[in-house]
């Protein structure tokens, strides 16, 4: 019995409790963000196309007795995600007779879980009462994200293959080829950042940017704004190149237009999830947008200073600033998501051979050369 008591005494209960609380909190925020990203996508796209979009399903606050004034013109459409969720939950969950049942059932779960797990290493705030706002501060942050997010392709491939039908199959095949070609350039494009910082922990990467300014805007957005030094200015060139390559690879990785070949409504009905309905389809949908949020969070953490913002102190100055830092992080992520949406409704889809050419002939080489440029600059112009 003593042995058991010792084990119990050694278990870091506090750590487990905090991690659990952070996980649940982050999950709630991210899933809420997902549903409102879908709404934002519909609304922004319609505004860009001179339409109005979903503006009806508001919260009936006037029915609940909040005064006589009708708030629906202001809140119009904000209830749409809830209506969509209820609709998707109540729809018939139809499994076609010809599918490979086991893989057909696990594919949607794989898609979303990979996207959600990759959020675990992202620092989404500084500290909140001396508790660091990251679920798992591991020393291989970006590598973990790349490893997990490339698992996300299994969801798509299994869905395409198990559906036993030609359009999903084509979507799955395309997805595999696309992921392989863009994983490479994505991984290589962030190597310059690690060369500059010498760290792989995402928390340290953000702290570096707090000291030296956002990576994409050297010097200016730092805790103490200053003009960048000569070496920093020169390093900005490879950083910008790697930012562009990383951003575009992220579009391909998350199957967003202009690289949404696995879905390609006009060619493949709706690609890998053609045979899915109801909540299983919704899981793919959620997974896609969660991957988008995870990607945006990574971009924000690596290039745009994470939770930091000039003249806003970190969480060691009190609870309030800790919450503000979390707000800043999610505001940056939201801005990034809106940019994703802008791009989606601006560019037409790439042809398959163009996509392959872009991945293998252009980005792979650019990212590779970029590493050597960075290393050269670091060797001859050491940054203090």
């Amino acid at each position, binding site marked *: 019995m003593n042995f058991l008591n010792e084990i119990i005494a050694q278990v870091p209960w506090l750590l487990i409790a905090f991690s659990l609380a952070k996980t649940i909190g982050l999950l709630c925020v991210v899933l809420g963000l997902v549903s409102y990203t879908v709404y934002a996508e519909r609304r922004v796209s319609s505004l*860009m*196309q001179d339409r109005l979009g979903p503006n009806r399903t508001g919260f009936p606050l006037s029915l609940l007795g909040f005064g006589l004034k009708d708030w629906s013109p202001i809140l119009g459409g904000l209830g749409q995600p809830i209506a969509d969720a209820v609709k998707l939950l109540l729809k018939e969950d139809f499994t076609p007779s010809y599918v490979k049942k086991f893989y057909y059932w696990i594919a949607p779960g794989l898609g979303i879980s990979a996207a959600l797990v990759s959020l675990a290493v992202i620092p989404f705030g500084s500290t909140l009462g001396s508790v660091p706002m990251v679920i798992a501060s591991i020393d291989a942050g970006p590598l973990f994200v790349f490893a997990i997010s490339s698992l996300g392709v299994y969801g798509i491939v299994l869905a395409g293959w198990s559906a036993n039908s030609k359009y999903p199959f084509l979507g799955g095949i395309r997805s595999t080829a696309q992921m392989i070609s863009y994983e490479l350039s994505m991984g290589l494009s962030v190597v310059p950042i690690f060369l500059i910082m010498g760290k792989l922990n995402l928390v340290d990467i953000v702290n570096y940017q707090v000291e030296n300014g956002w990576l994409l805007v050297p010097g200016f957005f730092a805790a103490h704004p200053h003009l960048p030094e000569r070496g920093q200015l020169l390093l900005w060139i490879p950083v910008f190149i790697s930012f562009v390559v990383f951003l575009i690879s992220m579009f391909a990785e998350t199957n967003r237009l202009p690289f949404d070949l696995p879905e390609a409504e006009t060619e493949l009905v709706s690609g890998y999830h053609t045979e899915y309905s109801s909540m299983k389809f919704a899981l793919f949908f959620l997974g896609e947008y969660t991957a988008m949020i995870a990607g945006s969070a990574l971009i924000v953490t690596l290039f745009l200073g994470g939770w930091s913002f000039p003249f806003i102190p970190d969480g060691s100055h009190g609870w309030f600033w800790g919450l503000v830092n979390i707000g800043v992080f999610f505001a940056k992520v939201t801005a990034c998501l809106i940019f994703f949406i802008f*791009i989606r*409704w*601006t*560019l037409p889809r790439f042809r398959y051979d163009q996509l392959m050419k872009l991945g293998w002939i252009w980005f792979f080489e650019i990212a590779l050369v970029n590493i050597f440029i960075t290393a050269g600059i670091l060797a001859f112009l050491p940054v203090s």
Partner: protein
Amino acid sequence: MAYTVPRPKLTFSEKIYLPTVIAGLRITLGHLWRMLRGKTHVCMQYPEEKWDAHLPEHYRGAPTLVSDEHGRTRCVACQLCEFICPPRAIRIKPGEIPPADQFAKVEKFPQEFDIDMVRCIYCGMCEEVCPEQAIFLRKDYAFTDISRAGLVHNKQKLIELGGVRTGLVNKWNEKK
């Protein structure tokens, strides 16, 4: 015969693609900005705004039964509309007017007059064929219900929709 599709000569900025992305973003964001400032003319917001005031005179809405000045339904149950109706939406059950009635010489009246609005195609043939000027297409068009049976307009509903219409040919004066 083989036909070579002429490919446009791309400039350098078009070849590296990123400047054209920015050009595309300028267009879409321009539309977004115009929309946000309320400068874009968007389509009519249906339930709040309606076409009703702009409907032309010849608009063909729901067929209805009209009544004359004496409150008599002009229909004499000749069933021509029932026969002409292309989707067979009309069902009439004729009845006899009792001899004591003021309009006894009309002889017939519709005991039941149903128009199935699920079937009706708003063609207006019933109006054209009617020898009594009893059936007219009105401007009502929005009929909804949660059942098919609810969309069958019976005689009472048709008379209600049709209302009284004066100034039509009056065949059934006592002197005629």
